[in-house]
């Protein structure tokens, strides 16, 4: 997008939505009734040193004990300590890889990050800094300092509150795992001591792992950010005030409520683009922070965001916040991209991103979707990552297909196409049977299995479920699930039971295999052919007979090659235009159908509408009597050309 257009957009939004940095009105809901049960209230005062990429901060956390029992011990996440060579995170990255880094990844000192608590005081109990103790609930790795625990001198009674005063400082890593710096860009995520969640009658505060994300309680955030004047800041909160300090810096104050995290970003190189969208809950201000060189993706981000806002609002439930901040990381900062925080998402594009490659749109849609599946329906990303990433991947398919076309929502070139369901399918099939969906995120075989199962298998599982209960019913189930569990911490069973309740069907047989099992689904046409009924009385055997009078017996055998049992429909077509349809419960290893007609088989096909996206091999789902070699020839053309071209390149050396 040209700069003039950026200014035009900013001017238009200033006219219609008020000044760019005006104090945003608080959500209407906060005036009447809070959206969430507010357990935490964070007040943080942070100062960024953009040259050193460090943050000095003080935090006051007021924790309301709604656990129903006295609490004396409180665990805190110190996520930034994961970026150290001895950490559990790095140990797992080295062993099994993580997003963007394969197994065997070497330690790069530039990726060092840390969070250090300089002082911890508890109101009424004094300085408890010396009482802090690093704990490792998951793997007993004593060198992992991502969880610290503090035990108070006396317990906090149920219903009472406790106030923690924490002075801490951060060293940001060069961007890794969603956070850090690149050039003059700072993405500040998971940056403050964050208390664990009392869940299922225990503290839930896992260490930071290679494949895990986050889990926290809802509440309010009042955050002051002090940065040099030239820094352009975006944050997951409403800008309350902006003040210039005597040293030439500025302090921006943000407020956010009914969220469970707060992140922010700063860079003097950002270009701010503002827009707005009005949904069922009123206007939403869209702030897009663009990095240099990515201007051509600006409108693509905005269009995708508005389309996603509209469809989520229509299909799943209202977007209750008045803002959405979108951050486009600069080149070299891609590891900070594709991440979600409450009301702030990070995106991803490239300088010369072709229009037919819909990566900017997909990232925008996906991260926005997390405002629902993670942001509001705040599931435990450590233990049930599929509930945010998986459901979100499913809704990504639905939204992207609706906005950009079913077969062109990923790639849309004249010479190559790909749709979202195909993308999820190949993600799942890359490693389909090592882990069940329901596994804890850090216990997957490796990062590939984690990604393929958590994201893509869940999406494929839900797409396949549409065949059983219908697309509209599943959409209604997701709507019910969202409305019922928003601003809470539901479990996987809550989700599955909601689907069963809305569909009115017992789906345990399916969930046991698809969610809790590792079975692979693969049905195929084992055999399909026609034979004269009186085969001994044919011209081949000396009989003289009109071919039109011949009665053929047609056999079609459907085979269950995988161990996943699923009902399938079989469509058989004959060469006289007649058809037959069968429904098989898919329980046995195979089933054979036969038909006696004055016609021979033309084709047999299971899953004719491509609804069973969990099917490992859909090429064997059908049989056509008339051989069509075009696909094989097309592939051969490509490979012959590639072979010849490589030959010519090598021959150039001679």
């Amino acid at each position, binding site marked *: 997008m040209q700069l003039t257009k950026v200014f035009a957009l900013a001017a238009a939004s200033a006219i219609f939505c008020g000044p760019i940095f005006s104090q945003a009105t608080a959500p209407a809901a906060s005036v009447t009734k809070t959206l969430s049960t507010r357990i935490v209230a964070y007040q943080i005062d942070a100062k960024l040193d953009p040259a050193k990429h460090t943050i000095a901060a003080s935090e006051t956390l007021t924790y309301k004990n709604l656990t129903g029992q006295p609490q004396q011990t409180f665990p805190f996440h110190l996520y930034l300590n994961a970026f150290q060579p001895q950490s559990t995170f790095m140990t797992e990255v080295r062993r099994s890889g993580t997003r963007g880094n394969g197994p065997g990844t070497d330690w790069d000192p530039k990726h060092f990050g840390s969070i250090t608590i300089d002082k911890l005081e508890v109101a009424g109990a004094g300085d408890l800094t010396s009482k802090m103790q690093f704990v490792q609930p998951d793997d007993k790795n004593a060198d992992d300092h991502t969880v610290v625990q503090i035990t108070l001198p006396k317990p906090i009674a149920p219903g009472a509150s406790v106030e923690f005063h924490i002075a801490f400082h951060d060293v940001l890593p060069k961007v890794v795992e969603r956070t850090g710096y690149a050039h003059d860009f700072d993405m500040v995520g998971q940056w403050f001591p964050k208390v664990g969640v009392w869940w299922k009658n225990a503290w839930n505060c896992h260490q930071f792992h290679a494949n895990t994300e986050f889990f926290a309680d809802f509440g309010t955030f009042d955050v002051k950010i002090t940065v040099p004047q030239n820094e352009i800041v975006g944050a997951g909160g409403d800008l309350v005030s902006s003040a210039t300090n005597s040293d030439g810096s500025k302090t921006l104050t943000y407020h956010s409520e009914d969220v469970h995290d707060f992140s922010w970003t700063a860079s003097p190189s950002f270009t701010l683009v503002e827009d707005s969208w009005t949904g069922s809950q009123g206007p939403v201000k869209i702030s897009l922070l663009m990095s240099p*060189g990515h201007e051509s993706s600006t409108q693509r981000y905005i269009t995708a965001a508005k389309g996603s806002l509209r469809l989520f609002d229509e299909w799943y439930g209202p977007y209750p916040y008045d803002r959405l901040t979108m951050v486009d990381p600069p080149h070299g900062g891609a590891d900070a991209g594709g991440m979600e925080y409450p009301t702030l998402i990070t995106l991803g594009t490239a300088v010369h991103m072709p229009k037919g490659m819909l990566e900017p749109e997909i990232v925008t849609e996906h991260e926005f979707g997390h405002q629902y599946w993670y942001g509001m329906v705040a599931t435990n990303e450590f233990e049930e990552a599929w509930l945010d990433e998986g459901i979100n991947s499913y809704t990504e398919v639905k939204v992207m297909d609706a906005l950009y076309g079913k077969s062109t929502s990923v790639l849309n070139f004249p010479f190559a196409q*790909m749709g979202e369901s195909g993308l999820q399918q190949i993600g799942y099939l890359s490693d389909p049977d090592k882990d069940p969906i329901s596994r804890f995120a850090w216990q997957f075989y490796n990062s590939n299995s984690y990604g393929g199962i958590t994201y893509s298998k869940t999406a494929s599982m839900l797409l396949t479920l549409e065949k059983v209960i219908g697309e509209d019913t599943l959409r209604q189930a997701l709507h019910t699930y969202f409305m019922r569990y928003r601003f809470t911490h539901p479990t996987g069973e809550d989700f599955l039971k909601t689907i069963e309740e809305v569909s009115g069907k017992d789906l345990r047989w399916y969930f046991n295999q698809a969610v809790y099992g590792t079975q692979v689904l693969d049905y195929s046409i084992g055999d399909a052919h026609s034979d004269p009924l009186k085969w001994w009385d044919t011209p081949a055997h000396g009989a003289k007979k009109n071919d039109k009078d011949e009665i053929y017996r047609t056999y079609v055998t459907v085979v269950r090659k995988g161990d996943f049992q699923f009902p399938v429909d079989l469509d058989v077509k004959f060469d006289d235009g007649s058809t037959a349809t069968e429904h098989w419960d898919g329980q046995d290893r195979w089933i054979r159908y036969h038909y006696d007609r004055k016609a021979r088989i033309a084709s047999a096909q299971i899953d004719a509408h491509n609804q069973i996206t969990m099917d490992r091999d859909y090429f064997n*789902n*059908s049989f056509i009597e008339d051989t069509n070699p075009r*696909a094989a020839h*097309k592939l051969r053309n490509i*490979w012959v050309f*590639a072979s*010849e071209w490589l*030959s010519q390149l090598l021959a150039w050396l001679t």
Partner: protein
Amino acid sequence: MAETNRGTFFSGAGLVWKWQRLVWWLFFVCLIFGFFSTHEMTERASSLLNNSVAAERLVKGFDVSAFITLQQLPDSPLEIQQHSIAHFSLVFAVFMLFATGGILAAYVLGEKPTTTAFFEAAGHHFWRFFRLLIYLVVVLLPIAGLAAASNAMYTHIQDQSISPYPGDHFAEAAVVIILLLLIIVRVWFDMAQVIAVADDEKKMHRALRRAFTLFRRNFFSLIWLYLRVSIIAWLLFALGLHIWMYHLHPQSVVAAFLLSQLMILTWIGTRLWQRASEAIWYRNYQANQVPSPAWSPTPEPMYMPVAAEPQP
């Protein structure tokens, strides 16, 4: 020189056209190798796709996810391809090393490339060119080093600049320079091959030295000769690719095959165009050399003995 160069440029094309059987021959060998390298894949793909409705996803358009799914199948028809293609490409390169002697003999000597003459020349020069190949690898090493250094520099620039453009521009410039260097090396070694054939030079280091001297003295004319053909080759290739990707109907399998083969054919043709042009250039160069007169001692002044004064 420019006039001469233009003549060489077109004469080279004419020579390739005149003895186009060489182009066709190389093309068919390349095509046969291409078919061999993909034969097993085609067989396996045929058994999977020929009677499958899902194959339509690859015919009506090209569904990349279907293509990747094929690769992910336990009995994927595509998994064997990379090795097979690499092996056959290597064999073709060896074949080209062999054939180059015959091709150059035809171009340098200007005689009709009969089968016997072709293979005799090919066999005659094979080991010489093999030795040249070793020299070439040695010469390419510094260029590989330069490429690695450029890559490191690119990373450094990308790390330093918030804008992606400086790094990208540097990379583009580095690619142009490295390609130019590769062309320079190729011209030099091609000239050494021409000298080896034209003068039946047995010592390849001597051929290289002579080629280097010749190239240095006629640097711009020879580079321009090659560069023009290279630009034409790349433009034709890009045009073919563009038509294939953007204009051909996805179901036009036969048309796609013909187009792809036309691209390979023109690629081979333009490469031989370079070889023919250089051969003609060398022939002309030799012809234009005014033979230096044989050394002869400056006749010493003849001092005729003064005739004795006749005695009175």
